[in-house]
């Protein structure tokens, strides 16, 4: 279906609408996964002022727990439920034993401790599950494809998108409509004031940390049937999640949502269309070499630009400095 054309002054590129829609869905999927990681990260960052590099470890742990339960029981639902409980518990333990002691120390300590935690979690997974990755089989219903007109979409891709949107909606209600959410918002804007008003801040921190870990684990469970669970799978995506947090504004769940979608779409679209776009103004050869580098760098360029021109992020939490 190569009927439509974009008209540019000198050259034209054919637009394959099916491909474009597939890529948009891919971008949306990546964006929602990033949101699941980044929303927890941004709250931990904004409320506790804690840099958690090991947030990606929960992503990995979630995937491994889920895979283990699925291989024993054969039920994906059971796998997800058990893994959610486990990541919540592990998140709570990390908060109680380690993170809690460090909220008042400087960021350098956070970077070091969480870097150490990454090493510990990666090695523990290696010891328990071995060096090879773990595939998670999908039930038949989710493994098929959906035909909409000429468009063919994998069912599971839609499942990921829907669950991502569902969690985003739940989180939105939690943050804007409940007492806990009110405290979370207040904490992100002004922690000292919340403390002074007599709120049990330790409990709040524990809940936020553990919920963040659970959402990160959930993202890992969602993606694992496609990519399979592997050691260090969280270490690349966590850096992009940090970019999302910075671009969206530290402590802002709304910011994390929009920034995650922007970055997910930008990254996916960049990787598939940048060489065509560059060919409009550069020679084909230059475009072929420059495009992969540039598309991998796009998200970091966006972050550098945001930090240079709008350091508080695109959607900073209301009332923060």
């Amino acid at each position: 279906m190569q009927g439509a054309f974009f008209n540019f002054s000198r050259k034209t590129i054919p637009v394959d609408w099916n491909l474009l829609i597939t890529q948009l869905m891919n971008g949306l999927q990546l964006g929602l996964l990033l949101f699941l990681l980044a929303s927890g990260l941004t709250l931990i960052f904004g409320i506790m002022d804690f840099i958690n590099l090991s947030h990606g470890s929960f992503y990995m742990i979630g995937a491994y727990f889920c895979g283990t339960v699925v291989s024993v029981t054969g039920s994906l639902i059971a796998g997800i439920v058990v893994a959610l409980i486990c990541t919540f518990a592990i998140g709570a333990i990390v908060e109680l034993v380690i993170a809690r002691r460090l909220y008042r120390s400087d960021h350098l300590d956070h970077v070091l401790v969480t870097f150490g935690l990454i090493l510990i979690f990666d090695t523990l997974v290696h010891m328990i599950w071995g060096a090879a990755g773990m595939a998670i089989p999908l039930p038949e219903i989710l493994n098929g494809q959906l035909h909409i007109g000429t468009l063919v979409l994998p069912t599971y891709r839609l499942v990921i998108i829907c669950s991502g949107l569902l969690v985003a909606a739940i989180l939105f209600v939690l943050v804007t409509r409940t007492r806990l959410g009110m405290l979370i918002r207040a904490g992100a804007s002004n922690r000292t004031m919340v403390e002074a008003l007599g709120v049990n801040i330790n409990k709040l921190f524990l809940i936020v940390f553990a919920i963040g870990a659970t959402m990160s684990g959930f993202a890992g469970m969602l993606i694992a049937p496609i990519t399979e669970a592997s050691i260090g799978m969280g270490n690349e995506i966590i850096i992009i999640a940090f970019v999302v947090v910075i671009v969206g504004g530290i402590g802002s769940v709304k910011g994390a949502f929009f920034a995650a979608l922007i970055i997910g779409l930008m990254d996916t679209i960049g990787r598939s269309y940048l060489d065509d776009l560059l060919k409009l103004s550069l020679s084909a050869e230059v475009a072929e070499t420059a495009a992969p580098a540039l598309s991998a760098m796009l998200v970091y360029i966006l972050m550098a630009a945001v930090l240079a021109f709008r350091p508080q992020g695109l959607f900073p939490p209301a009332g923060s400095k």
Partner: protein
Amino acid sequence: MLPASNSGRVYAVLLILLGMAPFITSWIDQPFYLDLLSRALILAIAASSLNLILGYGGMVSLGHAAYLGIGAYCVGIPAYYDIYNGWIHLGLTIVVSASFAFLTGLIILRTKAVYFIMITLAFSQMVYFTFVSLEEYGGDDGLVIYLRSEFPSWLSMEGATALYYWIFGALVLTLLVIYRLVYSRFGRVIVGSKFNEERMQSLGFNTYRYRLTCYVISGVLCGIAGMLLGNFTSFISPEMMGWTRSGELIFMVVMGGASSFFGPLIGTSAFVFLEQYLPEIMKTINPSWHEYWHLPFGVLLVCLVLFGKGGIHGWLSRFDKDGDVK
């Protein structure tokens, strides 16, 4: 120039021993130790350069490994075109790392705290992905460097001993540069703006310029470490500038004791030693455990932050009567 304290004497003896290392290793017939030391000293140059901005300047860079990579590729890419002139390699390293540090520093130094950490990370990731996508120079797989940089015979890098003295010389020069900087007016401004930038500004110092200069110097020193690393390993790949490498560099600085003069040297030595012998130690517990050496390593890192303020240098300084952590 060394502080007349017990820890100072320990370091003086250490430097003399390091200077004699090739004789000692050939005497006990263990050339492998010289390899280990060479690697430790190269990393010590990188860690000292990071310490200049992190320890003294309070600028926590999570992207310093980028300069290691830039230095290494300044050897690798000319070598790919059969250009082995060492002066060209060195010149290129200095020019490229200085310009990269300057251009990114213009933006980086406008940010503070968390934002500083994140933006240094962003720029180093950009460098990382640039080299990953350079198919011509091996991309992900990296490059093999077949010959070392060529210098006049009195400055040759050929042979393990010659390369070791190159590295040792570079380390001593680096330490001298950092010492002169830190204990000069320039260094006082840098340390001052770590603690209270507004105060330094109200004293009339353009702290932005001072910090930028400091950042560029640090980048160049780390670039030179990268150039030596390229010559030493004779194989380079983007992996050497991944963000976990930058994390390790911070670890080395803090393990040795940030903002202490010899801390990075101690920290990198300890790091290289652990990296080499933790697998052996794990093996004695259970023969199949040598792959799991990152576990005690991570535990050590967590404990270091929770309990060990001041790093190894801090512990050594407790033997000093005045207790002054230099």
